[in-house]
């Protein structure tokens, strides 16, 4: 799993300044993970991007009062939508891996039923990948990265 950048924190730093700084950092991390995320042969990429969306979403929620409410709601909704699409792709990845481990541990007589479930999860994985591709395209079209950076700028702007 990709480790997040370390955030140097000053407990006395103004809450809004810390929020702006950390949102920029986490937004940059999120979009840095987009490369190759649709490659179903490397399931760690989608995992890393999903973890990055969780970290970004957590930071947005922690610093929510620092952002203008309307812009914040829209951006948070879109980050959630991206996280959901990553989840739709990631969940079957995890299930397939777990079912393959189970199949390897049981007798041959028990494998056909498990193989059926694996095949169904592979179908879900393909559907999840198509959904993720569309979600990434939407995020690009709507300028999600740029809007996150603008949100951070607004947090720092004098009230």
């Amino acid at each position: 799993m990709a480790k997040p950048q370390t955030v140097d924190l000053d407990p006395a730093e103004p809450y809004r300044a810390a929020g702006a700084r950390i949102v920029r950092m986490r937004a940059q991390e999120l979009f840095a993970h987009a490369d190759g995320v649709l490659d179903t042969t490397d399931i760690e990429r989608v995992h890393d991007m999903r973890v990055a969306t969780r970290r970004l979403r957590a930071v947005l929620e922690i610093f929510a009062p620092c952002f203008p409410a309307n812009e914040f709601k829209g951006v948070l909704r879109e980050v959630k939508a991206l996280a959901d699409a990553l989840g739709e792709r990631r969940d079957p990845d995890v299930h397939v891996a777990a079912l393959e481990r189970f199949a390897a541990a049981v007798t041959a007589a028990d494998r056909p039923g498990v193989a059926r479930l694996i095949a169904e999860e592979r179908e879900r994985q393909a559907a999840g990948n198509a959904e993720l591709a569309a979600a990434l395209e939407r995020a690009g079209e709507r300028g999600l990265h740029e809007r996150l950076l603008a949100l951070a700028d607004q947090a720092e702007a004098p009230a």
Partner: protein
Amino acid sequence: MKARKVAGLEPDGTLADNAERIVRERLDELCAFMPTAGDPSEVEALHDMRIAAKRLRYVLELTAPCFGSYARTATRHVRDLQDLLGEIHDCDEQIPAVRAAAARLIGEDATALARLAEGEDDADPALLRRVPHRREHAGLAALETHLRGRRAVLFARFAHAWSELERKGFSARLEYAVTERPEP
């Protein structure tokens, strides 16, 4: 589960003072699920407790350096707790999915068997050898058995982990740690 709103947050206040309020609220939210989530049949409470643990974990992972040293220890405890609750949740999601898959195959095979016995006075059990999914039922039953057994093992670990946290004064120590500020 919607997170509780944190009262008194001040964008112009310090990071540590605001983070302290958030940690207190999220800690309270987490602890409020016990003792309900201590009942293994309380699937929803366990799921919500996992979400509460996740929220507390993320705020602690980010802001623990603002507080006394126990905040870092608490971060590890909460991460372990969330991971364990996540594993239990995976079982709770997979068990009904496996049951549903098994029920679907049984339904299809029952229909196939009835068709094979068409025109007969009764359905001969030997016809089971000719139904399409006859080789798949055993694996699904084995999988459900494993998931249920694993869930019980994981739940016992969770119950033990929580009682250890209580014994070690996790909640009180974290509440104290968030009032502390590191030396500049």
